[in-house]
């Protein structure tokens, strides 16, 4: 009898709490980057920040932004996570692609060459087989790096591979060098040992962006705002608990503590929408247009969907007016 009364009381209290909470529970499918720079998405999910804002997030991990955006177009997820290069490149053809916010700014690229393949400095790259994941920030990094050496893609033999393949083929010697992001850089470096030569330390700046389709964003504005709120809660938690956040990353992605300590200053987990994202996309799009014989580059200001972030955190919106 007593147990029944207690159970009834708990049910009443739970119901009261549930119904007193503002708004309904929304559901959203998130295609997250399966790696350290996508940490905010996983923390928000695993630490219950999405639950706090009454958002049910069905999260799915992808090894690259391009894969996540493809999945979004395939209808597997509602929101994808990708670097600005991915968005910039896809925006040439996908006019409904919209940027919600950046969730991480990072410098995590690395350029590793094999000494036994005659690469000891950046002067030895000409004619070498260089692996890279196409349609990624690494691709742009490669172009910039080569330009700094006075080279273009035509001066080398570019090999388009997935990050996992890059690691395998660089270690096996099927390619002479590779440009990719962490933790794959460290994996190659560790495997090659003294045979590895690091030609680039951190690469150019990149931003991991939340993107969605225009039609979905218009229809799911409340869910999108809850998604942003949950991510902002995660950001606040990371700022307040950096050591716990590091520990979470080590455990979540099976990383090395030394690696995290090295990477941590090069990844800034924050929900923002700064103006330089547009400028960065403009920069890469000029190269993309030229490389792909496209005369018109997209107006990336139109890809910005700032209303939901402005509604949640106005100060985070740094883009200028359209």
């Amino acid at each position, binding site marked *: 009898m007593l147990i029944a009364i207690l159970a009834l009381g708990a049910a009443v209290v739970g119901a009261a709490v549930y119904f007193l909470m503002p708004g309904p529970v929304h559901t959203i499918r998130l295609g997250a980057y399966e790696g350290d720079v996508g940490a905010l998405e996983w923390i928000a999910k695993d630490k219950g920040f999405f639950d706090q804002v009454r958002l049910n997030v069905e999260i799915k991990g992808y090894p690259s932004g391009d894969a996540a955006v493809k999945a979004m177009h395939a209808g597997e997820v509602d929101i994808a996570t990708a670097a600005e290069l991915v968005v910039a490149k896809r925006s040439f053809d996908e006019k409904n692609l919209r940027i919600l916010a950046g969730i991480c*700014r990072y*410098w995590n690229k690395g350029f590793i060459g094999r000494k036994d393949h005659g690469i000891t400095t950046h002067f030895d790259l000409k004619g070498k087989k260089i692996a890279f994941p196409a349609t990624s920030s690494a691709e742009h990094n490669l*172009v*910039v790096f*080569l*330009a*700094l050496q*006075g*080279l*273009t893609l035509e001066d080398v033999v570019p090999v388009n591979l997935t990050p996992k393949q890059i690691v395998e083929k660089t270690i096996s010697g099927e390619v002479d060098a590779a440009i990719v992001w962490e933790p794959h850089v460290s994996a190659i470096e560790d495997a090659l040992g003294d045979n590895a030569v690091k030609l680039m330390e*951190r690469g*150019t*700046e990149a931003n991991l962006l939340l993107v969605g389709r225009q039609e979905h964003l218009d229809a799911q504005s409340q869910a999108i705002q809850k998604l942003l709120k949950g991510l902002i809660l995660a950001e606040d938690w990371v700022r307040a608990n950096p050591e716990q956040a590091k520990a979470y990353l080590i455990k979540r992605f099976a990383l090395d503590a030394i690696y995290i300590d090295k990477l941590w*200053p*090069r990844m*800034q987990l*924050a929900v923002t929408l*700064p*103006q*330089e994202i547009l*400028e*960065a996309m*403009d*920069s*890469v799009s*000029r*190269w993309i247009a*030229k490389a792909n014989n496209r005369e018109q580059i997209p107006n990336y200001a139109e890809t910005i969907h700032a209303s939901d972030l402005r509604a949640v955190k106005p100060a985070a919106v*740094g883009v200028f007016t359209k």
Partner: protein
Amino acid sequence: MDIKTGFRAVLTVGAVLTGTALLSVGYSQYAFVEDTSRKERLDHVANQGMRLIQLTQEVLLYGEPRAISQWQSQYVEMGRLISDQAYIADPDLGEINGALLIRYSDLSPLLEKLTSARQDSRQSADVIDVLASQLFQDATQLQASLRDLKDVADESHERAYKASKQRQIAIFSLFGTLFLMYGLAVMMLFRGVILKPLGDLERTIHAIRDGKQARAPNQREDEIGVICQTFNQLLDEHDHSQREIRAMAERFRNIFEQAAVGMSIVSTTGDWLEVNECLCAILGYPREELLSTNYRRYSAPEFLETDIKRVKAILAGERQHDAWETCYIRKDGQAIWARITTALTRDSDDRPLYFVTVTEDITQRMADEARIGEINRQLEEQARDLRRINADLESFAWVASHDLREPLRMISSYIGLINKRLGPEIEEDMRTYIGYAIGGAKRMDSLILSLLDYSRIGQDAGLHGSVSLNDVLQECQLNLKMAIQEAHATVVLPDRLPFVTGARGDLVRLFQNLIGNAIKFHHPDRPPVVTLTCEEKKDEWLLCLSDNGIGIESQYYDKVFRIFQRLVSKDEYEGTGIGLAICKKIVEHMGGRIWLDSTPGEGTSFYLALAK
């Protein structure tokens, strides 16, 4: 806690409070200045960065050597600023600075490569485009970092301003409240510790001024408590003094009124201010009449001048008081003698106030003195007569004794010649008769000599002085040496005998007579023992000369001191019977006394009381 300690504590608290408030304000200002300087530092970095961006854009657009040169200088300056320790240590920069450093460091290789690529005609346009594009991208990213930095600086400034404002408000609120509480506490303390007790004390004083019985509240242990306690003690002493003064005044009034002499208080001009009944009685006037008049009215005219002169001398300060005899005229016209004793009372500035005068009626005394004078004069005349008679008597005694002894010697001589002429044939009866006649003549001679001695006692007034009784007794023993030896007598004297005032010869005769009598009248069954003791009394020496002789019947105690009185037959003990009379006369002439106590058959004690 006493008031001094309390107020020292209050002042200390006030000083600490003020010091803390000043320190707090100082700290607040210091923090504000620190925060402001931080904003200036960040602003400076942002401004220098914006210059670098501007130069980057110039290089991108035109590639002028001037722009490249300025860019390089600005790059170095920017590098210097962002490597400054104060800048690096700024805790709020964090990620912003991380991005800024990376973006800053990426600029230089891009710009250098772009510059060299532009100058290299062989370089492909694609490379130049990529480099220019990336340089522009990095520059805009650096610009974003600078905006963030500026935001941090602005936020920092705003935060500093708000913090300063909050600190100021907090400090003013806190210390305002504390000072208010302190002020209230001081006021309450001041009121409780000083104002209220002083108010109570003031009310007590007013009540006392209004003639009410009141006492200061005395429940505190601080200085005011001590003041109240002292005040109450003073009140007690004042009350006690007032009672004493009233009692003294009453006593003085009683003494003044009931004195057996006339008493008065007289102004410096001679008016009676106060008189007592006795003075009224002496002068025969009622008090009211005396109090409206001046003493001069009552002075006998022939004494008035003297009275005034005496009074003026006192007023002039020649003396403080004076006493003289004068004469007043009573209301009934009778002249009376009075002894005036008066003293001048002065105030604290030595100004004369009034005389306190005692008037003694000496009319009777003056009459008595006159009578005594007359008696003295008569006594002096009688003394002169007595001295003349004594001189005549002495002369007579001397002449008589001298002249009487001459016929006696003649009678004795001629009877001796007759006895010799008659020779052995003379009848026995005749011879006996002749012997009687000669013996009678000799005794007559002895009596005359004794009488002469008796008459001469006290005649040697010039030989009086301090005499050692030791010496006197030594001489006596020497004189009586033969008699002492013959009678196997023992004379016991004290170790020390005092000095007495008298004539040495008389004292030798006194003790020689007494010791000689003790030996002469010794008991036939025992050798004489004569013991002298001496005891000091208040004003005299009491000497006792005891013997173990035959003793004296008590009915003869007085008779033995009379002249020519004998208690035993002259046949049994020779002598004239004048010895003890001489002793008595010597002692009395010295102002002393002599008496005896005796037990017949056991002994006699003669007591001599001699003045010291």
